[in-house]
């Protein structure tokens, strides 16, 4: 009993340190962190902290310094504490403490209870399901979990004893490794709580972004519950220890912040935070860098199509998130080259048009299959269309989602599988590829719902920076 309590305490302290790092990081990245809501900062703190901590672990490996808990967390914590001691840091902490004391009680009405009840029931199931069962799903055992236990045992990024897609980026295995150090042992069931945590952060971020985009709190909560309880894919990923949910989190963060920036509704510092999310995308999964690149491409195309004031300058500002993508991508890529790790070059050999045709069928089936994503994608198809799409910055989200659906079909056209293997290959990958996009699809749905009631009454929206529709703040 005491052992379990001690393990839980160590886990909470370990996770708390990641939040703390991100909280301190926000002070560095954002001029006035208080411009972001509590929900946004909670979610983005963990994402930023995880990116920073795991990149630091890569640096330690590069320097040949074996991992210990002190070496992993000590210097970043010292840096974080130093940031809090700066004038901006002190001011932020003071404001946050004041805000916590004067925080009004959350008032719940009719539908709020229903949505909170549904979300509560979901996590009442998913959290113990993650924390009490050992790692068992394919990629968790074959890749992420296996790497984490080896990194822990070897005190570094030892990739010599396995062939587990060694060239894949390592945010997730390194985060698990860090938690094993925090726990003092390989406890793969307890460390798995980060996956319901990532899921919870996706939902918190979606809710916060939906409110910022203009939805009432109740509708935003309904939309959040709608994403969480639609089909089995999101729910299952809360406890199977795959990297897809973290990638979905970073994708939502990047897409949401860029969308706000394009609409002129983003608080100052949104672009550096979006850059952090793009770094997370590139560093957490092999599919991350191309996905992040499509975010930038969609943003650039939106600016070029709508041509708001100073649009050329704004195109130039996209260099900020581009630098984030490079920060998440290049260190690992250079490490792979230095270590001469074999990269899966067999992924692209030829284009197989018949596979593309089959992929179209599989894709549309997956989008409307209630088992996979429920009615979320059909709801988007029914409610998302509209003439205003071509005249507003929501074009960005539509381009990103639509472009990636097309890219999924193209990717299957390039997959070097036999005709017999192809359906199984699609079955094993398609739901995950769509999971990366689904929270962004929900964000697009939020904009469609906003159209139905553009001026909700009696709802307090978060403070928006004043400025034109296409404000140019970084």
């Amino acid at each position, binding site marked *: 009993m005491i052992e379990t309590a001690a393990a839980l305490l160590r886990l909470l302290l370990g996770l708390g340190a990641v939040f703390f790092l991100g909280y301190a990081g926000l002070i560095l990245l954002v001029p006035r962190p208080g411009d972001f809501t509590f929900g946004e900062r909670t979610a983005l703190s963990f994402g930023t902290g995880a990116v920073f901590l795991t990149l630091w672990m890569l640096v330690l490996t590069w320097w040949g310094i074996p991992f210990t808990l002190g070496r992993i967390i000590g210097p970043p914590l010292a840096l974080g504490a130093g940031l809090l001691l700066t004038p901006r840091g002190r001011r932020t902490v003071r404001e946050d403490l004041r805000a916590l004391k004067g925080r009004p009680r959350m008032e719940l009405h009719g539908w709020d209870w229903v949505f909170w009840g549904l979300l509560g029931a979901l996590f009442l199931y998913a959290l*113990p399901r993650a924390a009490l069962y*050992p790692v068992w799903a394919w990629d968790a055992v074959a890749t992420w979990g296996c790497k984490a236990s080896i990194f822990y045992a070897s005190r570094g990024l030892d990739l*010599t004893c396995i062939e587990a897609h060694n060239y894949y980026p390592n945010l997730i295995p390194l985060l698990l490794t860090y938690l094993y150090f925090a726990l003092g042992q390989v406890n793969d069931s307890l460390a798995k709580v980060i996956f319901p945590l990532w899921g919870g952060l996706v939902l918190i971020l979606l809710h916060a972004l939906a409110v910022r985009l203009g939805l009432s709190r109740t509708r935003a909560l309904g939309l959040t519950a709608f994403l969480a309880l639609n089909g089995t894919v999101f729910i299952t990923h809360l406890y199977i220890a795959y990297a897809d949910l973290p990638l979905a989190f970073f994708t939502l963060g990047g897409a949401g912040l860029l969308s706000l920036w394009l609409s002129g509704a983003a608080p100052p510092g949104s672009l550096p935070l979006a850059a952090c999310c793009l770094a997370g995308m590139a560093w957490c999964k092999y599919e991350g860098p191309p996905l992040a690149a499509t975010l930038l491409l969609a943003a650039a195309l939106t600016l070029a199509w709508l041509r708001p004031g100073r649009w050329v300058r704004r195109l130039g500002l996209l260099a900020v998130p581009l630098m984030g993508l490079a920060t998440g991508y290049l260190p690992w890529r250079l490490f792979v080259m230095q270590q001469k790790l074999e990269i899966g070059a067999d992924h692209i050999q030829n284009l197989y048009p018949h596979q593309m045709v089959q992929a179209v069928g599989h894709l549309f089936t997956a989008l409307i299959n209630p088992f996979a994503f429920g009615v979320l994608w059909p709801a988007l198809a029914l409610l998302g269309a509209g003439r205003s799409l071509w005249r507003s910055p929501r074009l960005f989200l539509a381009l990103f989602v639509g472009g990636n659906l097309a890219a999924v079909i193209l990717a299957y056209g390039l997959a070097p599988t036999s005709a017999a293997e192809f359906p199984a290959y699609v079955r094993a990958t398609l739901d995950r590829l769509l999971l990366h996009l689904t929270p962004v699809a929900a964000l697009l749905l939020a904009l469609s719902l906003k159209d139905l009631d553009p001026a909700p009454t009696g709802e307090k929206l978060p403070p928006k920076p004043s400025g034109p529709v296409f404000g140019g703040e970084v």
Partner: protein
Amino acid sequence: MTPRKTWRFWLVRLVIGLWGLQVLWLIWHFGPEAGDLARRLVRGEVGGAIRQEEPLYRWAAALKTVIPEQAAYVFLDDYAAGKEIQVRYYLAPRRHILLPPDIPAGFLFYVLHRERAAFLLIRESARPLGPGAQAACASPAFRRVNLPGPGLVFRVDADLLGWGFYD
């Protein structure tokens, strides 16, 4: 309200109705798993206790006491069966080399020698042993380790396999 908006409100209601059905279906779908979770919680059979139910895990746990951490082993199995990745996970950080069950003797012996593998593991299957596994059973370079479980375990003397190609 414009007719267009009325239409959209009806669509929203339709979607909410379908979502309600979806939530009920999810409760039905995840019900058995939630029941299993509740039962395990009541009995305290969680974490490591769940693993102990697996014969493959018990076998791997016994192998851990036999195979040193620095050693390499060759595992004969089909990747698609999904058992090899579990054994690799349980035995990490021991170096793991997967080969197919129907591998010819020459190539199996060559890999064992080249990789300095100290153990050969053959997961049991309904199919008869392949030529490589049969040759291993008959060769003096392999000593059977008596470890009950869903597979055969051999200690390999890689030096005895050092005379080159066999086929």
